[in-house]
């Protein structure tokens, strides 16, 4: 059996070749975004994009670049505190979404007395814990299994840049260089720039550094890579050009 994940281009309503659908007896087949199961045995893409089939996870989904973020469970997002309520914060995910809720106790070692005080407008990095179609999403800034923050929580300093959702997913891939074709952050690091990033699936990327110049360079590199849909070679050129501009 093939273990490498494969990809095909699909259009909405296309028939999917049954031979590419992974079949194992141990795990149920999992359908990701962009696919719909029509009982009894038909799987139809609902969007156009790249159909990814992963036999190891026994799953398949369509990778596409949409514009509106729809929260789904376990997504990491960058939100903005909108206002405070009795025991939770309202968090703005994007101008098009209704506010998500973030309970006051969903922070590392937070108790009723020692909960973080966040001002409206504060940025937070959070995980979506609850996402139903007709309900507001719920967030957490602490891992519910370990009780540690694991990098989540309020974000201080730096700047947020808007990127496309597909680009955010590519940045979050474990092997973003091979699978996502993205090398721009590594290249910038090799040039000796010191910065940190946080990527939100809601199409936001936060860049932090001591010097605003570096933040702007990294932000511009990311935005231009996203908007121009640059390949690895073009990314190299872009980084060289930006570094030259900086000096």
């Amino acid at each position, binding site marked *: 059996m093939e273990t490498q994940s494969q990809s095909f281009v699909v259009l909405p309503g296309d028939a999917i070749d049954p031979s590419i659908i992974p079949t194992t007896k141990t795990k149920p087949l999992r359908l990701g975004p962009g696919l719909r199961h029509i009982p009894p045995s038909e799987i139809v893409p609902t969007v156009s994009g790249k159909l990814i089939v992963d036999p190891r996870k026994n799953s398949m989904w369509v990778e596409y670049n949409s514009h509106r973020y729809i929260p789904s469970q376990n997504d990491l997002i960058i939100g903005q505190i909108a206002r405070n309520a009795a025991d939770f914060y309202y968090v703005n995910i994007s*101008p*098009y979404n209704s506010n998500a809720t973030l309970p006051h106790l969903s922070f590392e070692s937070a108790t009723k007395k020692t909960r973080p005080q966040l001002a409206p*407008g*504060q*940025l937070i990095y959070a995980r979506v814990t609850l996402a139903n179609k007709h309900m507001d999403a719920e967030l957490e800034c602490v891992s519910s299994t370990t009780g540690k923050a694991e990098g989540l929580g309020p*974000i*201080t300093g*730096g700047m947020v840049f808007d990127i496309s959702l597909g680009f955010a997913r590519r940045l979050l891939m474990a092997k973003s260089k091979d699978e996502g074709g993205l090398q721009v952050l590594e290249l910038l690091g090799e040039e000796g720039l010191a910065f940190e990033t946080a990527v939100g699936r809601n199409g936001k990327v936060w860049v932090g550094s001591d010097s*605003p*110049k570096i933040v702007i360079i990294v932000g511009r590199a990311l935005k231009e890579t996203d908007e121009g849909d640059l390949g690895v070679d073009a990314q190299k050129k872009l980084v060289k050009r930006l570094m030259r501009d900086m000096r």
Partner: protein
Amino acid sequence: MPREAEPSLNEKTFVLQALQEKLRLDGREFDQYRPLELTFGEEYGVAEVSLGKTKVLAKASAEVTVPYPDRPLDGVFQISTELSPMASPAFEVNRPTETEVLLSRLLEKTVRRSGALDTESLCLVAGQKCWSVRVDVHVLSHDGNLIDACCFAVVAALRHFKKADTSIEGGVLTVYTPAEREPVPLGWLHSPFCVTWSVFGEEGDIAILDATRAEEQVRVGSCTISLNRHGEICQIAKLGGTAVEAIALLNCTGIALTKAKELSSYLDGKLAEDAKRRDKSGRAELLTAENDRVTG
């Protein structure tokens, strides 16, 4: 009243901090415009302007109506602006935001009240018939500096526009179709352009041109200067905000003049290019019946 999503605290502090170090988010100089692009439509009087990610469409049209009773010798000229929800989630239909009201007021002051269009030339029969010229401005995408982009689009659309030729014989008004007689351009006197400065810092000591939306959201004041390429200022609007030093303002007007000259020559170039494209037979010169007029 609908409002735009506020930028986060991090963004606000960062934009200010960067500006204090003479840096802008897109790497531009303080007095540099984003790439400006102007395209004319197939019809006369359709102009689409894009300034970075800001996109504006203006369409000029004309019809014959009855003049206002108190101004029997003047034509009717109006500019209508529309900010649709397509441009930004903060805009709603039929609920004008402050931005929209200020925008239409500024366009009115810049183009209409400065006498850029000769409204007397729109009169056909005194007190009975006149042309009503109307420009509809649609904002397709909002990424800051709507005023400059809209004003440029309006001026471009009006200068590109041609109305049907008419004649009066024995009290009978005839409006000719383009096939019968070549349409005639409007009586245009001068081209005003808006140049908007955004002011930052507690004392308003940082001034930048062509602010993006992110920058507009953290600015402490703005100043719109409308002027033509001869340096004749039509209006200066400094609506509230932090006080700005008089000398700094004077400096801003100086730079605004060079920008207005750039915009003017860009528009002239584009108009000439479009006229050349339309004039396939090379006989446009012969078809026109109008006299030469020195315009600015």
